[in-house]
Every structure is written in structure tokens, then in C-alpha cells.
């Protein structure tokens, strides 16, 4: 008698379904891998390389050919230049087809060979800053001027490569060493934490307040809800520049208002003075992202069962009691998920601070530091090292996130 058991392994249908799934996913995976995974790997690679902004365009061999008809005998001149100041150029060479009417008669430079009208040379490795001239006697038949132009315009194919810092095997930990050795890093890290923690908490609390306001039916509720989303929907560059205009120390309305109301005596430099600038960018972050928390919290609130509140009313619970003991426990899930998500994204935020202060006046966060190192100091390697640190933090956060996420299920 045969044992009865569920089928083992996957059947033909299941296999077909999986094949289809991978087929549908393939384009997405391919393109995301190309533009996300590859750059991520590249960041790790670059972070251990001494790359600066100037190294992005590796030096190329420069060659020029010309004919001097007036000398006696006429000479063809070859110039070979290695423009790199530091690096040796390997496997250099050139090839050119001379125009008819120019026949080389003199000694060819070492490594050169002539087949018919075609001159090809191999110069081997050239030292940094090599600048050589080779003169070769020639016989000219025809009009000198025309031939000079013809030689100058002859198509010159040159080759030679410097070793590219991006691809060679020089590795260094200097980027990281420099990053952690100065006291600067921990300052930047502290600023990032302040911005992230208070920005996230602030946006969450303000959003909760806004959601409580709108969690009832009245005329105009839809309009207010749309209105309160404005800060989030508007382009960041537009609102950031508006804030700068509004808080300008000389022509800003906020300062004029404060002076007029007697709160301050003189102009306050909101985005330029040390502790204030950090507080201001955090306030901006709260202002810009409270709509998002508000929207999510409101959506959750509206799905809470009203029976519970009716029961609480029967038992004589006061409004605050209902909020603390009924609403809050129901909202805890969405609040914790929102907190973690917003925490991660605030940590990653770049545009806002970059536009508001450019990372000056004690507002430089890690992400702004990536840009500063790579482009302002033009040390791409150091920028990549900061990026690696950012990515490492992100991984740690996401572990927490997925733990909470699987507990809370969905969002």
C-alpha cells in the first residue's frame, strides 16, 4: 500500500507561476539594481580610494603634428605631451596617415614605423609632464601652404592611459581616518541627532494635534484638510526660499513684526546665528512634515470604532480620559511606525538644510557633510566615506523598523 502524503516540492503550476513572477519583476529588479545597488557598491569602493573631483576626467595623451615647409630641409614635427602632473602614462602611441606630397626621408624616432604614407609610433610609457618634440626630415612636392594645412588637419589617432584612481588598486583608509580623527565628526553627528529627534517628534506631535482638530465633521473640514497639506505639497525650494525671505535679518517681515511688537530690540539673524539656526531648520522640518503625520493619524482615527467611545460615555469618562485611555492605545501602532519612518527620512534629509543654511551656522548634518566633503572640499573619497557612515546608520535603524513593522503589521 502506498503512503498518502501531501505532494513534495513544487509542481509544474507553481513553477510556472514563479517563472512568471520573476519575468514580471525582472525589468524592475534590473533597473533598480543598476541605479541603486551599483551606486551603493560604488560608494563603498570610492570611500577607500583617494579620489578628488579632478580625478573624474583622467588625463589623456595629447599629440600634435605639423609640417614646417620653410626650414631646410622641410620637417614634420610631432609633439607628444603627457599632461598629467603626477602619473605615468602607459602604452602610449599614435598613428597618422600623411597626405600625399609629403614623404618622410629622415630618421624616424625610436618606436616609429612607416608603411606607405602611414606613420605609426609606440612611445611606451611616458613619465609625468613629458613634453617631447620629434622632428623628421621630409620631402615636399606641391604647394607648401596647402600641404602644411593638410598635415595639420591629418587625422591623428593617439592612445595612452594614465592609471585611473577610480579603477586601480590603490586603497587607503585615509578618508575614514580623517573623518573620525577631527572633533568635527561628533559635532556633525550631534547636530544630526538633534535635528532628527526633535524634527521627528515635533512633526508627530503637531500632526497629532492637527488630526485631533479635524477628526470631526463640520463644514469646511475638507478645505482645511487640503490647506494643512500645503507645506508638504509645495516644492521644497519654493518654501525654503520663502522662509529665508520671511526671516531675513534686514528685509524680513518676521523681524519687522518682532521689533514692532517689542519682542526684540534689533534684527535677529535667524538662519545665521549659532544655536538659533539649528532650531530654525528643525522648526522648518516640523512645519513641512507635520501634514504627513497628520494625514496618517487622521486616517487611523477615522477607522477607530465609535462604539467604544459611546461605551466610555455611558461609564462617565471625561474627554481627556477618553483620549488617554481609548484613542492613544489605538494610535500607538501608527505613531510608532510613523516615528521610525520619519526618523529615518529626517536623518536622510538633505535638501531642506542645504537650501536654508547650506550647512553653515552649526546646522551641518551628516547628509550635508557628504555634499560638503565631495563638492565644496572636492574630496569625493571623503564624501563617500561620510555616505558609508550614513548608510550604516540607516541599516541599524531599519532593523528596528522591520521589528516594529512586523509587530504592527501593515500601514
Amino acid at each position, binding site marked *: 500500500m502506498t503512503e498518502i502524503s501531501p505532494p513534495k516540492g513544487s509542481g509544474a503550476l507553481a513553477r510556472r507561476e514563479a517563472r512568471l513572477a520573476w519575468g514580471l519583476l525582472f525589468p524592475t529588479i534590473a533597473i533598480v539594481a543598476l541605479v541603486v545597488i551599483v551606486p551603493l557598491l560604488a560608494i563603498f569602493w570610492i570611500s577607500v580610494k583617494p579620489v578628488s573631483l579632478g580625478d573624474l576626467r583622467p588625463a589623456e595623451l595629447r599629440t600634435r603634428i605639423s609640417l614646417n615647409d620653410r626650414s631646410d630641409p622641410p620637417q614634420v614635427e610631432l609633439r607628444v605631451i603627457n599632461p598629467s602632473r603626477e602619473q605615468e602614462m602607459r602604452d602610449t602611441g599614435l598613428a597618422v596617415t600623411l597626405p600625399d606630397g609629403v614623404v618622410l626621408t629622415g630618421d624616424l624616432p625610436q618606436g616609429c614605423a612607416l608603411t606607405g604614407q602611414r606613420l605609426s609610433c609606440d612611445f611606451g610609457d611616458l613619465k609625468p609632464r613629458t613634453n617631447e618634440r620629434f622632428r623628421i626630415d621630409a620631402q615636399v612636392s606641391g604647394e607648401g601652404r596647402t600641404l602644411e594645412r593638410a598635415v595639420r588637419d591629418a587625422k591623428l589617432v593617439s592612445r595612452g592611459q594614465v592609471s585611473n584612481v577610480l579603477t586601480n588598486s590603490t586603497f587607503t583608509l585615509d578618508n575614514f581616518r580623517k573623518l573620525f580623527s577631527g572633533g568635527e565628526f561628533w559635532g556633525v553627528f550631534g547636530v544630526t541627532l538633534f535635528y532628527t529627534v526633535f524634527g521627528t517628534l515635533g512633526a508627530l506631535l503637531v500632526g497629532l494635534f492637527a488630526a485631533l482638530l479635524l477628526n470631526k465633521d463640520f463644514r469646511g473640514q475638507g478645505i*482645511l484638510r487640503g490647506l494643512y497639506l500645503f507645506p508638504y505639497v509645495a516644492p521644497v525650494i519654493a518654501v525654503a526660499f520663502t522662509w529665508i525671505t520671511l526671516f531675513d535679518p534686514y528685509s*524680513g*517681515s518676521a523681524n519687522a*513684526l518682532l521689533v514692532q511688537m517689542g519682542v526684540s530690540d534689533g534684527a535677529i539673524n535667524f538662519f545665521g546665528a549659532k544655536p538659533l539656526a539649528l532650531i530654525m531648520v528643525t522648526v522648518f522640518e516640523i*512645519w513641512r512634515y507635520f501634514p504627513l503625520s497628520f494625514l496618517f493619524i487622521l486616517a487611523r482615527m477615522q477607522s477607530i470604532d465609535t462604539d467604544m467611545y459611546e461605551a466610555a460615555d455611558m461609564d462617565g469618562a471625561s474627554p481627556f480620559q477618553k483620549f488617554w485611555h481609548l484613542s492613544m492605545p489605538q494610535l500607538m501602532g501608527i505613531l510608532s511606525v510613523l516615528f521610525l519612518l520619519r526618523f529615518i527620512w529626517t536623518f536622510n534629509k538633505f535638501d531642506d538644510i542645504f537650501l536654508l543654511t547650506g550647512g553653515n551656522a552649526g546646522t551641518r548634518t551628516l547628509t550635508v557633510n557628504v555634499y560638503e566633503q565631495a563638492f565644496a572640499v572636492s574630496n569625493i573619497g571623503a564624501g563617500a566615506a561620510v555616505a558609508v557612515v550614513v548608510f550604516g546608520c540607516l541599516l541599524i535603524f531599519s532593523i528596528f523598523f522591520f521589528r516594529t513593522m512586523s509587530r504592527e503589521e501593515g500601514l
Partner: protein
Amino acid sequence: MKFLHKGYLAGPIIGALWALVMAVSLGVAISFATGHAARPAVFGALLLGLATGLARAWGGTRWLTDVVAVVVALALMVLGLGALQFGQAFGLEARIVLSIVLAGAVALPLNVILREIQIGALTRHEFEAAVIRFLTGFGYIFFTAIVIIPFYVMVMTSMKSQQELMLNPLDFSIDLSKGWHLFDSYYELMTRFHFGRYLWTSFYVSVLTVLLTLLFSVPGAYAVARLRFAGRKVFSRGILLIYMVPMIVLALPIYIAYSMVGLRNSVFGIVMIYPVTTIPVALYMLQGYFRGLPVEVEEAGLMDGLSRLKVIWKITLPLALPALASVGLYVFMIAWNEFLLAFMLLDDPSKFTLTRGIASLNSSEIPRQHLMAGAVIATVPIMALFLGLERFMTRGLTAGAVKG
């Protein structure tokens, strides 16, 4: 908080706080509207609020509260202790009218806020309800102010001249006699700074981004939501993880790669990179929606002999149209507002997107109102789209887009 549960304490205290809120709001509103000084005075506001709150708690009638508020406000004004201290620009009539307006702004809402408050002991219920009504009123004013003021400043600044701005930064009144010259900044941006072209570039880049994103994410999202295959869970988590990778971390190698390949400074390069930044978001949102669709309909289609791809095309997609609209709108918004990549990858003014164009206006040689006009030009289309399709937009935002 127990000791506050008495009408003669709760009424005046809430009244005083409310009067303070109103004095500040009215002062700011008057300043922004006229450009003249109207300073809220704490002491006067507290007195006015105390009196009004006490009148409401004690007398318990609407008209008494209103009368007390008006009388107290006018008396304080005459004594020079008014809750609003006016500058020289305001005449006597204006002061009286504004004082009465302030009294109304204090008394009318307080009548509602202190509805259940009597002079004696209060139940916890009555007290907390009053506090909540106070907080609600405060909240509406607070949120409306913080949202409206920056946009108001943005629009008004764009219509003023540099001199006017420096002269009195508070004066946002518009000189209507200037007629069309109010829009000089816009005219100049459109003609001299090529903003028309930037608008068009931003528009078609955004539309292409939406189309490409949907093209790639719909099949992917369907596969993750419906089909069973090994690695499905890892994959859907991977999407979220990628969705969290900071843009600046990716922007650096992309900048390097683009510099080497020569794709920098080309709109093509931008169109290639934007969809990839939005695909994870779209995948995440769409798969959530696909999961919510009834499987039975699709199974019926399969039973009737449609292939999977046909099922997607003929059943799932038509059912998911609202979701596609939401996701499309959201992606459009991301692409339209995108700044970092455009800023890093585009240097040639003839290829700028709108956000990059605005960034180029941020120099000391270009007057502020041009910058603000640029901001308005970038904001208005997305706002119009948002208000027109608000239903889709809010759905799209809540469908899993917590990214900013």
C-alpha cells in the same frame, strides 16, 4: 488640576488666555494687512479676557458677555492700556472700530468655549470640555496662520519692488493702481530668464517619469502582491529598504558615473534617473492596493481561459485605475518638486528644470521678488493639481508614502 474645577477660576483663566491669543492674532493680521504697527499688550489682553470670562461664568448670558467685553475694551483703550497698542497711523475712529472688533473676537468665541461654565464648582467633564474647545479654537487659528503666512508672503513679495521691501518689510498692501505692472517680475522671468521653457521641461520630465514609473512598477507590484514565489517576502522588504536609502548617498556615484559617461547636463539623463527614484515608492503603494483587490474576480478570469497577463490587463488594471491615478499624481509631485539631482546634474541654463531654474535665481544680483515669483510659478501648478484632485492625492499619500 483639581483646584481649577471652579467656574470663578476656570472662566477668567481660559478667558484671559483666549484674549491673549486673539490680541496676538489680530495684531499680526493688522500688521500684515496694513503695514502699520499694532502691538498686542499682554497686560491689557489679560484684563480684557479676565473680565469677559468672569462675565460669562457669572452672568451666563450671551449679551451680557458681549457688552462687558466691548465696554472693557473701550475703557482700556481710553486709559491707554488697550490689548492692542496702535501706532500713529491709526486715527481715533480706526482705534474704536478695531477695539470693538477685538472685543467681538474675544467675546463671541468665549461664549461658545465657556458654554457650560458656571460660577460655582464644575464637574471634570464641563471643565475638560471647555479646555478642549479652547484648544480647538487656538489650533484652527494657529495652523491656519502657520500655513497661510508663508504662502501669503511668497505671493505678495513677488509683486513688490526691492525698494518697497526694504522700506517697510511688513507692508504687504498691494498698490492696485500699478495694474499689470504688479506682475513685472513674472513677465521678466518668462522673457529674460526663460521660465516658460523651464516650465515645459519640468512638465514633460514629470509626465515621462510618471509613465516610466508606472510601466515598471505595475508588473512588479502585481507579482509581489499576487504570485507565489520563493523570495517574495524578502523582495517586498527589499523594496522598503531601498525606499529608505538616502538620495544624497546615491547622488554622489550617479554624479560620478554621469560625468564619466557624459550624461550630465542632459534632460535624457534626468529622465533616466527620476523614475528609478520613484519606482520603489510606486511599487510599495501599488502592491498594497493590489492586495486589497478581490482575488475571486481574477480567478474567475483565469478559469474562463485568460492568461495571467490578460488578467492583469483586462481585470486588475481597470479595477486599479483609481490607485494608478493616486500613484501617478504622487510620482508627478515628487518629480516636479525634485531638486537635488537637478541641481547636481544640470549646469546648462537651456536644460534647467523649474526647481533648478529657481536655484539659479538665488544670487545677490537678482532681486528678491524675482525669486519669489519663481517660487510662485513652481508652486501654483502643483497646488492646482493637488486641489483639483485632492481625493486621489490624499489617498495616494496615505497609501504608504511617508517619504519626504
